[in-house]
């Protein structure tokens, strides 16, 4: 098999051979840890695509106003904090760049709390995702994240198998003989 390493132990020289085998396995773990995130990021691509395809797109530009403090401003007189172009939710989905974890997490990008400006063109802020996914007391849910997980999981698993086979073959090639 292309992606396997054969370890043979000769009774005469067993100590050296066991050490070499352990070293090879340590190297395998080290190499995998180094490439883990790249492999998983590649595997997550069908998931990201499924979430992006399922995300509903609005028909008009939405405006966010500041939190209400003592009453609501009259129609048209509110202070505009942020503008959301249609497609903001869809484009917000990606493999999130989270520094504190080795895991690869797929989700919607959020702007920092209180961020102002325009979203949906080059910056994205999907703070309202949970309302769309789960609905509110006044609004029906439009679930698309959970269906995307169900729909894309088989493709993620296939991709994972392919990538792991490729990684194992590469390691076997580098450590042959």
């Amino acid at each position, binding site marked *: 098999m292309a992606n396997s390493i054969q370890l043979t132990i000769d009774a005469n020289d067993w100590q050296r051979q066991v050490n070499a085998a352990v070293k090879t396995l340590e190297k395998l773990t080290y190499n995998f840890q180094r490439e883990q995130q790249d492999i998983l990021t590649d595997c997550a691509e069908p998931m990201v695509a499924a979430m992006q395809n399922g995300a509903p797109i609005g028909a008009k530009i939405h405006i966010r106003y500041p939190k209400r403090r003592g009453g609501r401003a009259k129609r048209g007189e509110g202070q505009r904090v942020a503008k959301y172009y249609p497609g903001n939710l869809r484009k917000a989905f990606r493999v999130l760049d989270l520094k504190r974890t080795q895991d690869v997490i797929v989700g919607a990008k959020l702007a920092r709390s209180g961020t102002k400006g325009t979203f949906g063109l080059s910056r994205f802020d999907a703070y309202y995702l*949970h309302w769309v996914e*789960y*609905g509110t*007391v006044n609004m*029906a*849910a439009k*679930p698309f994240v959970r269906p995307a997980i*169900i729909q894309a999981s088989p493709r993620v698993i296939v991709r994972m198998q392919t990538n792991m086979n490729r990684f194992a073959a590469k390691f076997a090639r580098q450590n042959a003989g």
Partner: protein
Amino acid sequence: MANISGILYTILAADVTVQSLVGLDAEGDGYKIYPLTIPQQEKLPAVRITTIAVEPSDTKTGASTLDAIRVQVDSYAKTMYAAQQIDEAVRKRLDRYRNSVSVSGDTTYFVDGIRFENRNETMETEKDIFRISTDYQVRIHRTP
């Protein structure tokens, strides 16, 4: 297509605990268990049923005869305790349910099994309403 909200309504409305916790709607002819949205004039507590996804189990020779439908059941109430009580009563009734269900004005479906999957609790701060959302997987035979 299976009338999933009708099936769940029939199962839940037959349970005395759910009946007493949720109560009758404004017109008094049904319990406050709704598909998709809760009418704005209705007072809480109430239960809402939303279909999330349908997973067919196709065969080599034909269309799926058994669908696994993922459903979200929301329990809304003015207090967290009340929402928890409703959610627990709903779970007791639905989890591991397996039987035929005759939906009023529709047909009889065979529910192959209902399985609890996930739960999350939220508060809708705008209106001070508590909600517990629970996901179930409902397996239904398409040919009763």
